[in-house]
């Protein structure tokens, strides 16, 4: 396998114990495992495949299909910028640029200290509040590039750039 990771499998084992060892459990297990590790480490996917008797190729297929899953370590805080049509028109690009500038990452990237991951999403269904920025579970409507530092401070990660 890739990555030279030596991941502690205990959290994965705990998750797997709670579900019947069958293919139908796959997505539930992946969601819980993702919560436990904040991403899907390859060793964990191998273990999930073995335990649920699902071919590894299927597990990998599902793990790469859903946007909710990440195969690379993610930041403790996930910042999403909506780049849907309404948000785009109302300044999502400037918002995203400023966010990436402050955290010094590319869209989709994660800060080296694993503090933040920046993602873009396509319409979160709150177009009336466009542009929308989401820090973990907190939604900021009419978000302004000038306030990006403030949004980040309200979060659990360390916003060292401000």
């Amino acid at each position, binding site marked *: *396998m*890739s990555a030279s990771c030596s991941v502690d499998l205990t959290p994965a084992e705990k998750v797997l114990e709670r579900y019947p060892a069958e293919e139908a459990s796959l997505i539930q297990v992946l969601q819980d495992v993702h919560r436990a590790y904040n991403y899907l480490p*390859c060793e964990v*996917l191998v273990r999930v495949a073995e335990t649920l008797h699902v*071919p*590894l*190729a*299927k*597990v*990998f*297929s599902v793990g*790469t*299909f859903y946007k909710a899953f990440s195969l690379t370590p993610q930041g403790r805080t996930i910042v999403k910028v909506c780049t849907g049509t309404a948000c785009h028109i109302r300044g999502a690009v400037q918002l995203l640029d400023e966010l990436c500038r402050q955290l010094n990452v590319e869209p989709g990237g994660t800060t080296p200290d694993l503090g933040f991951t920046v993602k873009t999403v396509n319409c979160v269904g709150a177009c009336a509040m466009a542009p929308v920025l989401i820090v973990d579970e907190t939604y900021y409507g009419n978000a302004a590039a000038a306030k990006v530092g403030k949004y980040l401070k309200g979060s659990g990660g360390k916003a060292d750039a401000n």
Partner: protein
Amino acid sequence: MSIENSGKPVTLTIDGKPVQAHSGEFLLAVAQRAGITIPTLCHHPALEPYGGCRLCVVDVTEEGWDGWCKMVIACQFPVKEGIIAFTASERVIETRRVVLDLLLARCPDTPLIQRLAREYGIEKTSYVPNPNPTDCILCALCTRVCDHIGVSAIATVNRGIGREVAPPYHQPPPDCIGCLACAEICPTDYIPYTTSSTSRTIWGKSFEMLRCPTCGRAHITVEQARHFAGHGGVSEDYFTTCDACKRKQMAGTFQRLQGVLPAAAPPAR
């Protein structure tokens, strides 16, 4: 695909021709039996229909629908009594043209797609051609045949424009048995492999070959023999002799039984 002959007999009309079938059978199979050709790209009679390519679209209507037609894919449309199908109406042809135009944009250099597109009057795609041309049309025949034989070494990964067929982590797939079924079923010969009298490589994984003790031909990988022995409940030895030699031996046995050939000397122990 298992044809559901359990359904009750029905009569339908395809391109004005009355056709007998069983309810629940898929329209594509019924049409083929009646000698009516519907183009397909993701269909294979040995596999469950997939509905991935949309090339097999046809129009279907019923008595009392006032001429209103719905467009369905023939490979996954179960027939019933009285339906009227049109496999080459103007609307159908136009839809197929769009499908092929899009496919040609994805695969501008692929001979199969070029040929099909040309049959529908398309020389060049009207969309922006893929800057990184690929021969893979994502028909998933390869992944489905791999599933079908109980291996599942490859699958489609990612989604949207990033979707592709690949082994887990793009590494040599641990489950692959080197049977080449994926490469052989691929309609565009997209999956590369090498095979010789001593070894075989596919998906970046190398395999050792078994040699037929009779003719010496390297015809199957060690992993293949193990896999099929495990699934078929026969011994691995069954696979050491190649199919051609097995057939010859079998024919010899029959002829001896019928007294055409003298009985063979018992094999030396």
